[in-house]
């Protein structure tokens, strides 16, 4: 049969895993949990952002291309309609129509005849010369679009659309309409992404870009170069990706996307070829944060909730721990001490004294067995309350004299046992003498008339460790023998064990 394990001392309780250690483990586990949650959440957001921005960029480019196709379709239809009317004199037709403009958003219109004569205003004629617009017209199949240029008439960036036109019984010419670049801006406008989406027209050969949409309405129409405006700002780790993206554009692939970082912001950028505007592409860029801002707010809320929850549990644990500690203290006190005198109880004394004896093989110690003399008579004469008072008073005297250097125990009834640490016979004898004097002041009640000539005495048997015995049981036996001898000799005295 195995030996049953008891917790015999509060020290044993404190030797277990402490509350602070448990708290640290709890914090580490919770912290790790939150970290895993955040990493998973961030990964989810990132992935979702990338997919969404790619989709949105593609949709915006498609929208732009559809709108430009609608415009080219209008120009083509207008040219077809005029061709069907069979005009002969382009100068006359231009005179009529130019008075009647402006319609459908264009700022000017005109014709080019089969001998490359241009029917347009003086300012526009200069622009044909300056920007080589005649060459662009000849690319019309059935439509072509010029690169943007600044209009003298409006001062703003414009582009001109050319469409094949037939007049004078089969002669081949061109109709052209000049639109403000803002028309494209209007097409690009997407309310939900007004402040975030940037849209450029980009020429593959030169890397030149013209802003069509962005957070600042005044930046619309600005020329720049992607090498300076975009590529120079991209983090070095994404430069190769950008080069690959650009080489797809250079090789004529109609659409491609890329994700890159500028500082802490991640962008998704998509290009798509513009029909009839040869060598030009529409480029859309959206920062991922524009989509994930709502999710990020949610993430902050979740994080805040977790932190508050976590802290609330820590506070709750701490409060419970405090209460439990206080309760344990009370219970521990009750299990170790005699409730009446606060001296150690027998079990606690035996445990503590045994530990001491086992560990202190060299140091001297004295074990004292003390019985209050005629205690039963005190009880009988003055009552149990007075008896208790005697025991409490005697115990206080013991503590006063032996307290610092001894384990003091009430073994039961009027019987006290002490282990005086590091004490030789002379020193201990002196202390016993002091106790005898002190005991005289212990009275069963306050009323002197009542207790009369009552004087408290005691009998004490003592044994020395390690001379008389080298274990507790042996010492107790020796001290008991000595006490027996003192009692036999009439009490009120003390004696040392003699072999």
């Amino acid at each position, binding site marked *: 049969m195995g030996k049953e394990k008891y917790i015999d001392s509060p020290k044993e309780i404190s030797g277990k895993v402490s509350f602070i250690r448990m708290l640290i483990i709890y914090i580490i586990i919770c912290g790790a949990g939150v970290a895993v949650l955040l990493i998973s959440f961030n990964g989810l957001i990132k992935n979702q952002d990338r997919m969404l921005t790619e989709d949105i960029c593609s949709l915006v480019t498609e929208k732009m291309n559809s709108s430009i196709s609608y415009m080219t379709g209008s120009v083509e239809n207008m040219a077809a309609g005029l061709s069907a009317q069979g005009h002969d004199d382009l100068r006359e037709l231009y005179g009529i129509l130019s008075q009647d403009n402006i319609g459908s958003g264009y700022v000017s219109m005109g014709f080019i005849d089969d001998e490359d004569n241009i029917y347009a205003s003086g*300012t526009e004629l200069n622009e044909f010369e*300056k920007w080589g617009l005649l060459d662009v017209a000849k690319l019309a199949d059935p439509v072509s679009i010029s*690169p943007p*240029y*600044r*209009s*003298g*008439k*409006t*001062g*703003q960036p414009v582009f001109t659309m050319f469409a094949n036109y037939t007049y004078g019984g089969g002669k081949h010419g061109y109709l052209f309409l000049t639109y403000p670049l803002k028309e494209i801006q209007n097409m690009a406008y997407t309310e939900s992404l007004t402040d975030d989406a940037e849209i450029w027209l980009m*020429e593959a*050969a*030169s*890397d*030149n870009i013209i802003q069509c949409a962005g957070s*600042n309405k*005044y*930046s*619309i*129409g*600005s*020329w*720049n*170069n992607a*090498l*300076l*405006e975009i*590529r*120079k700002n991209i983090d070095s780790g994404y430069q190769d990706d950008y080069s690959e993206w650009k080489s797809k554009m250079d090789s004529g692939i109609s659409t491609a996307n890329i994700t890159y970082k500028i500082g802490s912001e991640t962008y998704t950028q998509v290009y798509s070829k513009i029909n009839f505007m040869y060598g030009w592409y529409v480029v859309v860029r959206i920062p991922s944060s524009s989509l994930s801002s709502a999710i990020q707010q949610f993430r902050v809320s979740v994080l*805040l909730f977790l*932190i*508050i929850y976590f*802290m609330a549990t*820590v*506070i709750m644990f*701490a*409060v419970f721990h*405090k209460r439990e500690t206080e309760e344990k203290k009370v219970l521990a006190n009750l299990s170790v001490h005699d409730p009446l005198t606060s001296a150690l109880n027998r079990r606690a004394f035996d445990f503590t004294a045994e530990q001491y004896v086992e560990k202190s093989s060299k140091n001297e110690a004295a074990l004292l067995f003390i019985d209050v003399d005629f205690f039963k008579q005190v009880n009988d004469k003055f009552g149990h309350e007075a008896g208790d008072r005697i025991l409490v008073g005697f115990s206080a005297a013991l503590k006063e004299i032996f307290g610092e250097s001894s384990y003091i125990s009430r073994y039961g009834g009027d019987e006290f046992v002490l282990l005086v640490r590091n004490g030789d016979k002379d020193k201990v004898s002196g202390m016993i003498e002091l106790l005898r004097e002190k005991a005289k002041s212990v009275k069963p009640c306050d009323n002197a008339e009542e207790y009369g000539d009552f004087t408290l005495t005691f009998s004490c048997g003592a044994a020395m460790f390690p001379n008389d015995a080298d274990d507790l049981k042996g010492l107790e036996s020796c001290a008991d023998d000595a006490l027996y001898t003192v009692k036999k000799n009439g009490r009120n005295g003390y004696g040392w064990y003699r072999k």
Partner: protein
Amino acid sequence: MKRLTVLLISIILILSGCSESADSGQNFSPPPDFQPLNEIVDGRRNIYLIVKNLDSSYWDVMIQGAKDGGDDFDCNVYYSGTYSETEWEAHEQLMDKAAEAGADAILLAPNDSVKLSGKIDEIYGNGIHIVLLDTIANTDSYDICYMTDNLMAGQQAAEEMINLLKKGGVSENESAQIGMQVGAASSQTISERLAGFIQYWSRHAPEKWEIIPDIKCNNGYLDEAIVCAEELLEYPDLRGVFGTNNSSTIGFAKIIKEHGRKDIAVVGFDYSEEMAELINDGEYMASTMLQKQYYMSYTGIETALKLIDGEEAPVKFADMGVVAVNKDTIDQPEVQEALRHN
């Protein structure tokens, strides 16, 4: 326990209360007050000129054009400006001051095409005529803009570069690298010159003549321009450098002269002492695009007065063009005329 609770509550407060406050303090120097450019005569129209840089020979020429215009066309002309071409907020203040002082028209060379558009809208909306000089703004709220079409000027600069390299004996089959640097990257003028240059280059330069993708930016400071120029010299096949503005061009001219690199063509803007040295030396391949800023302001004064009298501007945007100054053209009358006003 109390300490633990206080600590936990503090952490909650810190976590929930952390927020960065944006610093929106002003970071530009207050502009100087307007000064009269000519004799102020009561009863004459008041025209206010606002330039980008009061400490620059280029802008001195423009101020001179406005003064001569004021004298020739009989009006009072006041002027002010900034000492840094990035201080667009100071231009806003000056426009307000001119309006409060009762300007009949403002001649403005905007420091920022984009950011000043709102103020231009406001002033023009209050019935004050606005003539833009040198740089256009991204708004319709002005009467006319006299400037260099910078996209076209950039193209002409690229054409000059190709001509210089060909004359300098660089073969079309030979690898050649072209380095570029810009002043303020946000300036529309500079962006358009750059775009024009690259556009022309992509269409007309031989395939083996490449632009170095690392376009340097000196933020308008000469010392940075010199550092950028030095960095570009490290490219092994560097045969040409293009400066999109005055500081970039001076930076290139200084370094090319210092290293005696007569094998590298320098094309830039504005006529600085450094570029004049290269051009007059005759051994260097150098050409600079000269703007006609004198006529921008001179014509601007003339047009402003017509606008005040109720006439309409003939066009919204008038390209004043550029002339290329190099050792072959420097004696031409048109170039000499442009140099006289530089």
